[in-house]
């Protein structure tokens, strides 16, 4: 199956900006999550980020916090999430990136966790509370297990730090578009453009922009600024959660995914 890096290479060959939707596993339940993954996969998602629900999601805003709280309240366990993925991943084209805080990894044991997710076909990992200084513990064993660990760059990161992060990051570089937690914003900060340019001077690795991208116009904007991927989380999670039923949620999810994909599809 395709790795994250290979996926980006293929997209680059076609001059396409990737769409990376994010949803929280187990919200409202794992059966819906499984269905959502299949729908996203066939509605334009190039990669899919799946959030493992966590009790103390420091980097997340209210929408994803609430989703994690609901998922945990209905008894979603890591084993259940991995069990669901084992079933679903073989039917997907889009590689799966797990988004998880560090403590659940540590709790399971770094090697054991990596081996388990690699076996079921997960390709990448984003750990929002593991900055460069602490990432060594994960980077080497992940490389050995065939899991690409993507590190984050923030608007506050100074130039020398950006270069070090870009060098260590695997698969792609996750550019946080805003000084803040995840969540929908009405406007993109214009300094994302500068940060993208800065990244371009130090790396040719793909760059995905996330945090605060909630509309097709935002996705189009970051594509035009040179991003290799637009990552959209809260806006998906909200559509899934705020519909009257899981079924209606999935319909809204599909429509939104197609709108985003259309905005990212270069004509001609």
């Amino acid at each position, binding site marked *: 199956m395709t790795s994250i890096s290979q996926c980006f290479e293929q997209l680059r060959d076609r001059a396409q900006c990737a769409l990376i939707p994010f949803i929280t596993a187990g919200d409202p339940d794992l059966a819906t999550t499984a269905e959502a993954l299949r729908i996203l996969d066939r509605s334009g998602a190039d990669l899919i980020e799946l959030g493992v629900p966590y009790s*103390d999601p420091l980097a997340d805003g209210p929408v994803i916090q609430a989703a994690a709280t609901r998922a945990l309240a209905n008894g979603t366990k890591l084993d259940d999430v991995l069990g669901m993925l084992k079933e679903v991943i073989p039917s997907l084209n889009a590689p799966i990136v797990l988004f998880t805080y560090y403590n659940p990894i540590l709790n399971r044991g770094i090697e054991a966790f990596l081996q388990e997710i690699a076996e079921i076909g997960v390709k990448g990992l984003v750990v929002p509370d593991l900055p460069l200084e602490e990432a060594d513990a994960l980077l080497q064993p992940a490389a050995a297990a065939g899991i690409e660990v993507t590190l984050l760059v923030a608007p506050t990161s100074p130039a020398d730090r950006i270069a070090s992060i870009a060098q260590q990051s695997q698969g792609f570089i996750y550019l946080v578009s805003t000084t803040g937690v995840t969540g929908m914003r009405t406007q993109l900060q214009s300094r994302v453009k500068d940060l993208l340019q800065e990244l371009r001077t130090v790396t040719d690795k793909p760059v995905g922009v996330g945090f605060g991208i909630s509309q097709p116009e935002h996705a189009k904007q970051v594509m035009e600024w040179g991003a290799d991927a637009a990552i959209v989380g809260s806006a998906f999670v909200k559509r899934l959660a705020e519909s009257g039923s899981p079924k209606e949620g999935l319909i809204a999810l599909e429509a939104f995914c197609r709108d985003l994909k259309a905005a990212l599809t270069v004509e001609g």
Partner: protein
Amino acid sequence: MDCSLHRHGPVTTTPLPTNSNPTAIEHRPDSLGRFGKFGGKYVPETLMPALFELEEAYRRYSQDADFQAELEQLLKDYVGRPSPLYFAERLTEYYARPDGSGPQIYLKREDLNHTGAHKINNALAQALLAKRMGKQRIIAETGAGQHGVATATVCARFGLKCIIYMGVHDMERQALNVFRMRLMGAEVVPVEAGTGTLKDATSEAIRDWVTNVETTHYILGSVAGPHPYPMMVRDFHAVIGQETRRQCQEKWGGLPDILMACVGGGSNAMGLFHEFIEDASIRIIGVEAAGFGVESGKHAATLTKGRVGVLHGAMSYLLQDEDGQVIEPHSVSAGLDYPGVGPEHSYLMDIGRAEYYAVTDQQALDAFQRLSQLEGIIPALETSHAIAYLETLCPQLEGSPRIVINCSGRGDKDVLSVSKLLNP
């Protein structure tokens, strides 16, 4: 209620544990902010530059004569330091053996500080630091409200904008402190997530900091969180132990034999302990909150029952379930109601330099009343946990060792909720 003045417990002959290898614990933390394997910086990338900036500012101003002089003057004139080391005569009598011998109990009176707890030492120093770093907006988390009050106080004193995050459950049980903070001009933001206690307030404060990091300083209130906080907060409270050493010298020309303090995050305990870590003859005891009992699943006894994990930016012992989800703790004391603990405490426990025990809500409530009746000192519920451990410790001791307990805060804030618990 039992108001008798003597308690004739069995006299056992447990030897005092000693630490024979103090050299292993020099230079804490290392350059990466680690105490052994504990500590570190597990935070979103957005905060990393701010942590480096803070570390740099702290290093610079901890050696800056003007900064130190201003801090010292304010600790003296505004906080009221030094705080007394008080011989608790009737408490000592209460634990005396029939022959009149027994442990000699002293209280380090941090409850007499301005705002009624040790918390002001750190809040004041960090506010001075924030001012020099040019940050005009201050945020803080609070559990019992003591750190929130201390932060609101120093922000009023220096004209800084102040936002305090506090769990809704804590706002209810510490209503007096909510009023005090608002009176001094702070904005108190209710946090409804989770159980509405200190853990949730801390997460929310960190989210605010991630969002406003460029204009804001976060006055973290314990020896927890990412580096440099565990080191910096410890150092700002180290004055407690430094004064204690001097006062012991003045009173009996020697060292204390046993130090004791309550531990939630562990700032008052580190403030007392730090000065004496290398004095291997001194026994160091931290007392955690056992809530309804350490086997009940409703407690905050992190070091007693936790496993190593990462919370709020540091690796330390942590109350977590089999999936690595953080467990919501319980304690009658809002200030101890926290599922984590400062990383240096985890380190001191693992190397055997400090001992940690836990006492229940009920034992703490009993001690709350005992100290009030025997000494005319109403301790905070947090402090009451340290006082309560005397019940277990004193019968185990031989001779007449001198015990110094950090009387970390006063209990005025707790009288309303305790009166409800005692007369439901």
